[in-house]
């Protein structure tokens, strides 16, 4: 299947090793340069590009769970909210007493703490997930997402139903794309190792994987924990980008949005998923004129995708082939 996207896709898919660590540095450097010039950009476009960066983190990390490991999580928005709320609360409490030049450090601490809190949530979801598969797992993760939302909705410390507002605007283009580069690196480096082939093996056939000495339990929990960690970081960036958080921002629909990015990009195809995240972030902005029909078209897109190209729009056939060691 040749499309005009081939060269772009190949470029992204070539995040391969041992040059990968260099690629990571290039990615972060590019993000910082872009961030440096971001004053020149139109504020609106800048905001959408930051959304893109955050969505790339979400989609690539969900892809580790749903794509590479073959689980089916519908609760990514829940993980995102855990990280978002944790980091936002941290900033709201400490930003008045921290001098401005230390604000990036505060954000950094928020990202880490948010990611860790979310990873703990991922562990708690991952453990029961071991016994379930397919649609049952989907429903349970959906349930966990809803439970997390209801808890936030009822917790006065994080503003209950009205949420948190006045979160300082720390997120920049550099942060979003820098973290996106790290996420892509981590997922790609992990999967492209002998250890990481275990994720794909579990995804393909759990029973056979187990018989080859691969412990499916460990892989699945690892995927959930790592995926949740990055979702939590994405949530933290989101909080410091939007500056307000309400529980309804993290409902079932948000999880679906991320799942659609992964499916559109092609489960387990990092490059495609990145592209899909960018396209699906920009599409609603482009379709502002058709606001009334936008969501109907979105639903039709999901159905059409499943009927015509369930393997994803950008799933070209060379990702897993020849994924040689080192």
């Amino acid at each position, binding site marked *: 299947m040749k499309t005009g996207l081939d060269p772009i896709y190949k470029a992204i898919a070539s995040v391969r090793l041992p040059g990968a660590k260099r690629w990571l540095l290039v990615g972060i450097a590019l993000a910082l340069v872009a961030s440096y010039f971001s004053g020149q950009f139109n504020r609106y476009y800048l905001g959408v590009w930051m959304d893109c960066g955050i969505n790339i983190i979400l989609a690539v990390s969900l892809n580790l769970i749903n794509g590479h490991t073959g689980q*089916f999580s519908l609760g990514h928005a829940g993980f995102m909210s855990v990280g978002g709320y944790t980091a936002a609360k941290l900033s709201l409490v400490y930003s008045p007493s921290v001098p401005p030049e230390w604000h990036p450090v505060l954000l950094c601490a928020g990202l880490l703490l948010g990611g860790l809190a979310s990873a703990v949530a991922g562990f708690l979801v991952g453990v*029961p997930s071991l*016994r*379930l598969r*397919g*649609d*049952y797992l*989907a*429903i*349970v993760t959906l*349930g*966990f997402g*809803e*439970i997390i939302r*209801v*808890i936030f*909705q*009822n917790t006065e410390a994080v503003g209950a139903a009205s949420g948190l507002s006045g979160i300082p605007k720390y997120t920049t283009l550099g942060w979003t794309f820098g973290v996106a580069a790290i996420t892509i690196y981590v997922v790609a480096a992990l999967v492209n190792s002998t250890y990481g082939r275990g994720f794909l093996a579990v995804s393909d056939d759990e*029973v056979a994987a187990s018989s080859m000495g691969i412990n499916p339990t460990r892989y699945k929990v690892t995927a959930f924990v790592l995926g949740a960690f990055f979702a939590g970081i994405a949530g933290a960036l989101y909080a410091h980008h939007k500056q307000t958080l309400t529980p309804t921002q993290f409902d079932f629909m948000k999880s*679906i949005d991320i*799942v659609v990015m992964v*499916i559109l990009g092609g489960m387990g195809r990092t490059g495609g998923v990145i592209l899909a995240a960018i396209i699906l972030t920009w599409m609603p902005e482009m379709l502002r004129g058709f606001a*009334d*029909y936008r*969501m*109907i078209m*979105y*639903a*039709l*897109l*999901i*159905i059409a995708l*499943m*009927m015509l190209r*369930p393997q994803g729009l950008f799933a070209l056939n060379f990702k897993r082939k020849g994924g040689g060691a080192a």
Partner: protein
Amino acid sequence: MDSFFQQLINGLALGSIYGLIALGYTMVYGVLRFINFAHSDVLMLGAYAAFFLAPKVQQIVPLPGLAGALIVMLLAALICAAAGMLIEFLAYRPLRSRPKLTVLITAIGVSLFIEFTCQHKAVFGAANRAFPKLIDFPNFTFLGLTFTSLNVIIVLVTAALLAGMWFIVQRTRTGAAMRAVSFNQQAAALMGINISRIITFTFGLGSALAAVAGVLYALGAPAIEPLMGTQPGLRAFIAAVVGGIGNLPGAVLGGILLGLLETFAGGIPGLSTYRDAIAFAILILILLFKPAGLLGKATVEKV
């Protein structure tokens, strides 16, 4: 004590509605092994069908009134049966040999499509609409306790429909075919069973039940809107899993259990806001400790 019994009957009624919806989930899961996410929207369509039909029916049969209400409900059920079969034909049939997750995501897409389309101002619009009073349901007193007759009607209708479903599935040829398809689709096809017809029939039946549930739910609810099906739909799905998916009495049992729990939890201050979380917590516990559900049979993967 008085309020305990009232809560009991309230929970029983709510649970019966969940049970009716759960029957649809469970039957479709039985034959196709996937969660029909759009089922909760069929329920909403049922309520809207009744909403638009009621004024028309009123011109012939007096409303509120038992006969009129039955006619409206029957028509709504027919419309929804058609809608359910149409959804199956258009969206699910082309995917029958595809992986389950593909179908699941499609079902989510179909559900979103129906919801967003119905919210559009050219269709139903997103606003709340008052549901017409199809039947009088005065309170009555029995053994010193006050009951809403609507609740009693709901429980009776559910019991009757469960019995009907059980009869269809266990005692008719079509039911035997349904069970065969559920057991092994390929083998059933080899035995000369028309798989497509059975699946269509199952969707029709499940959707008709959803319509009845939708009308009953709307009668007790303050108003209807295009997203009204989501919450009861989710609960009903949970009920189906709790009872043992694929198991008809299990679906109703699960529904009643959930309805009772929700009603009683709602009565406890501090717990009421956690109602949504409680339903899911129960689901998760059941799946962890009794994955096949209360009445389901456990299966082991063959190697």
